């Protein structure tokens, strides 16, 4: 099941900041891995330390539904 990349593209628009590096998060490349499947996505990441942020709406929305679909494969 392919995840629509654009759906997963969350532009932080400077609303999020890495507390460790004190820099705003930027749109960056990330990957979700589950049960032997991998999905490239774009998520807010810290340009310095590379911390990847998964917002709550995403975790309980699309991520959860994809998890469930993969679990029933």
């Amino acid at each position, binding site marked *: 099941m392919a995840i629509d990349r654009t759906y997963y593209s969350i532009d932080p628009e*400077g*609303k*999020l*900041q*890495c*507390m*460790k590096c004190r820099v705003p*998060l930027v749109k*960056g*490349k*990330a*990957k*979700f*891995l*589950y049960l032997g499947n991998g999905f*490239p996505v774009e*998520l*807010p*990441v810290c340009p310095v*330390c*590379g*911390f*990847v*942020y*998964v917002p*709550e709406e995403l*975790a*309980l929305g699309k*991520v*959860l539904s*994809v*998890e*469930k*679909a993969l*679990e*029933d*494969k």
Partner: protein
Amino acid sequence: MPKVRERGSTHVYKVNKISKEEVDSMVARCIYEEPPFCNAACPLKLDTRAMLKAAAAGDFKKALQLYEKATPFPLVLSAGCEAPCEAKCRLCERGEGLAIRAVEQAVARFGGPPRAGSVFRTKKKKTVAVIGSGLFALFLAGELEKKAYPTTVFCEQADAEGFLRAAAGFLDEAAFALELERLKKKDLQFVFGCKATAAFLEETRPAFDVVCVSEDVFTELFPEAAVAPELMFCEGETLVTGSGSGVMSAAHNAKKAALTVDRLAQNLDPANMRGQEDPFQSRLYTDLSEATDLTRVPAAGELYTREEAVREAGRCIQCHCEECMKSCAYLQHYKKYPGLLGREIYNNTQIIMGDHQLNKPMNACTLCGQCTVVCPNGFDMAHICASSRRNMVSTDKMPLAPHEFALMDMMFSNGEAFLARPQPGFTQCRYLFFPGCQAVAIAPETVKAAYQDLCSRLEGGVALMLGCCGAICDWAGRYEMQESTREFLLNELAKLGNPAIIAGCPTCRKELTESVGGEITGIWDILDKIGLPEGARGLDRPVALHDACGARGDAHTQEVIRRLAEKLGITLAETEDSGDRSPCCGYGGLTAYANPEVADEITQKALERSDAPFLSYCMACRDRFARQGRESRHLLELIYGTDAGAPPDISEKRYNRLTLKKELLWELWHEETAEMKLDYELHYTDEARQLMDSRMILTDDVIAVMNAYRENGEAILESETGLAVACLRIGNATFWVKFTEDGPDSYTVHRAYSHRMNVVRREG
């Protein structure tokens, strides 16, 4: 060339935990699809139940359509039918059975004028001749027309009216006129004025693929020839023929003959593939308790008026067997009768590639066994679901997500929170008290009081074991884990000198009897024998007793519990579905973890039985009912005068287990346990607590995230909310905590969430 490795199917079949034959025999027990008794008794297989339903609703047009499926000439049939269905009507057992034939007559008269078949109907290529007249010939011509064979009728009479009168002269004038119109509208070719002689037959025969003759013609031309009565076929003369002493038998024989024509036209053996042609005994079960209208509606005239027929049809109780579905909220949720659902769940386990769409229903059954008791044939949904779960585990297809929390909880009970000690002052004990993981989590004070009471009143010492009996992994279908739990418990019991187990929970008792074996007594049996402790007192108002599914089929336990309740001075309120018929509280089978929505419906259904406070003897039942806001007490709480109070959340359950272990170790065995103290303050908002409970996030998970944050300082600041967000991957899930830093070394948790997918940074 590279080898393509396909996932083989043999493995799946080799490791099957439930065989197809087993499922077939189980599914065959479900009689939901069995026809009603009237339908099974009808040689023409009229769907009486549906016809009566339509008539009762006043929809005579639909009722007639259903009736016409059974016969091409409804007025002829209803006027002369012997109605074997009426004798089989279940209402006869309580009063007067339905006047089905009288309703049929009304349906035939009021169902609207005869309609011609569609002009677009494709006709078959093979042609059929019907020679002769009479009831059999009339019905056969009608049946063949229904099967779309180009049919020609050769008869002696001069016109269609004569042909109909020869068959059904007994009809009154109005009915005759209506039936004549119907006959004329049928797509039949008539050749009138034919004398059926041998020469005529030989002359006609070559023009048709199949030739049928009426009985009188046949006996006149072939007095010696034999006819197979089951097939209505004379093989020697290749003629289809038949007779009938009455309307019913003529119609039935015509149906058989039409099927024979069908087989012959396709060059197939007429004896094969005929299906159920004769009346049979239905296996259906009908609950007659709600049948109240037991007297036939009298007809003012000779026949029913439209209104009288509607009233009489309305007396039909629409025989259906839905005994299990009436009682089980799980089956009600999935809106499927268990024969079908069980089959689909089994099929789900056999999928090698593709979506397992029935995983959810498979994991939503509470495995409580209520259906087996209420089903007249003992259908066992729990067996199908439990075996299917094991099957899915064995083929590596079972998702971990629905049961992981419960399994981790069990590992916690038999790990960090596990305790096994002989009674202080004893090296070997005669007994061992096994309260069960839920009792320890929900009512630790009650467990403590019960243990101290047993220690003080039983001779020979009572050891204590705080842990899980293995029911959790049994319900999850994790049979390997179940085996390792069994070995673990056997080992721990051996260390204590194999004392006699006293179980605090009926499910533990059942599970332990099956796993570690031996005679396992319930604490209720001991208390029944040694008497209640001082101060034991029941509630001052009537309570509804909820029987635990662990005690289903265990009349002794159910009786002892009632005796204890009586000794406590408890007045038991009348409760529907108690004893063996008791529904599940929603905890069984891990439904509360795998499918909280269905579990809540099940709990609601169980609570609907009474408005009184609920009394149970399984701590999980007590907890489920209390969570729904109902006053709910465990029998041991009343016996020991303790009150476990409001139900604990998932983190408090773990905390309670650890605290009880720590307290008992200190108070009874004087052992001190190292205390894990946080070197910072952590507070939770009410919203955070609620979210954590519903999302199955433990305070331990949050603490782990916060510890990691304090170590590495990695977090995100949301400028819109002002909340900091930190995360940590623990086991198979990533946990996120949204918090504020209130001061140095002090935090407040506002929200928490998790996901199972692992997220990593991607280069390029």
